[in-house]
């Protein structure tokens, strides 16, 4: 598929894009996490699109994913209103605080800390410890 972005033309490989987006959506909605960290590499590395094309368009696709997933979870009775009302303000507040701290921290250090944290969490989920 050919797409145009700010006067430039790009070729998007949908043979990779569509199955990839589908798979990411299944996992993301199944486990309730955002698909961004997987969608961006899919579109930049595998579909070979430049970052400035990807940022906005991937968010749009992920928004569709979150909307559908949320409605389906609601339909299956997996949504807990009280729990949501507790966490929603916290998520909004986190969105305000995050960018303010981000300026003072090195992104590489943050990412390396995140890698260690994610591995610890992964191993405890897998029952290693």
């Amino acid at each position, binding site marked *: 598929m050919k797409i145009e972005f700010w006067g430039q033309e790009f070729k998007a490989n949908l043979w990779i894009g569509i199955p990839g987006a589908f798979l990411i959506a299944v996992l993301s909605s199944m*486990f309730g996490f955002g698909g961004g960290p997987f969608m961006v590499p899919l579109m930049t590395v595998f579909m070979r699109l430049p970052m400035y094309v990807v940022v906005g368009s991937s968010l749009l696709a992920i928004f569709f994913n979150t909307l559908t997933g949320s409605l389906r979870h609601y339909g299956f009775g997996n949504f807990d209103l009280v729990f949501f009302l507790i966490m929603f303000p916290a998520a909004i507040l986190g969105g305000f605080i995050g960018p303010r701290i981000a300026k003072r921290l090195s992104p590489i250090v943050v990412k390396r800390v995140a*890698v260690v944290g994610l591995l610890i969490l992964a191993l405890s989920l897998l029952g290693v410890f």
Partner: protein
Amino acid sequence: MKNFWKLAIILMFTIAFSTNIYAEQQSVTSAETQKEGIVLQVDRKELSGGGKITITGKAPQGKDVYIEIWSEKNVRAARLDTDPDPKTGKRPYIFYMTDEMPAFYTLIVPEKYKDILDQAKKEGGKWSVSKVIKDAGADAVYGEPAKRKIDRYQTTLWASVIGSRGTLLPPMDEKDNKRRSMQLLKAKFRSVETIFSSKLKIAQDGTFTAELDLPSNTAPGKYFILAKVDKELKSSLVTVENKITLPNVYLSNAGRTVNLFGPFFLALVVTTFGVLMGAGGGFILNPILVLLGLPHTVVAGTVMPTVLFSQASGVYNYSKIKFINWKLGITLGLAMILGAFIGPKLTELITLAQFKFIFGWILIILAALMFWQTTPGYLEKHKKEQAILKEFKKRAEEAAKKKAEGGK
């Protein structure tokens, strides 16, 4: 429009307070008088945020007494039966689900059966509720969950693909319902010690004493206590009221009471860190909530909508500066809609163990991805890309501004 908001606010308040009004209803003091031979008493009728109750009574001499305790509040329990048929070897793929499982259930067996419970604990995840009940001689007294209505659906691969639960099968007979209720008990409560207890001393003359420790995260409302010797010989029902006060709130779908500051601060810290690391908070928040014991279905279904609004505002902001290629976004979005239609159905079908296993591997992949993003090669490329991105954004913002000014 104004009326709509009024209605929405009224609706919100109704939902928020309806549970409270319900909890404040006084329990009707039930009779503790002798009936059919078993006397049953409790040392306290009211609890606040759980606590210890001593149950005493008298049963006919020389008989084993069992005590069932369950909450008035119900939760959902579900299980996909994939165990091969012992005769044909075919997997049934029947999905069992009830919305009437007590949020709390315990069967206290006489102290002498402690070994049976210990044995089941040693079996790990493979222990069976029905085996414990049979070995502890409780088959005739196990009653309450068996009465709950269980729906069963014949699922197929196709049904999962279109995201349906499958065809609803006719209701089960009493015996089958009882057997399936035991499996659902295990699917919901998992461990031996939440479903069974052996803290029940029976004296020579038939008097008995049992101890019940209601955990602080248990549901508010009434708890029913019933002592039984067999199907016919039982005490009258004794009711105990458990009250919870703010900041503790009851999550009706999860079947648990939590201190609302707990999830609030956890979500705050995790989402803040999520912004910093450039991945949504769900990757960290969901596993922690699941490890804390909340049902994986409720965790996935409740965390997901929390980012809906921030994503919507992000899309709006990008669209203002024309930074979205709609053709690309909608094409991939349609593929994602299809995927998101199926995903939540799968959450329901898998067990907690499977949830943890797959999530664990997803986190390892994510960690690898993030590690790759800190390698020198990637950083150099990323720097260039970010510079181009910034340049484009600047141009886009300026263009949007100009247009706005031109429009005036």
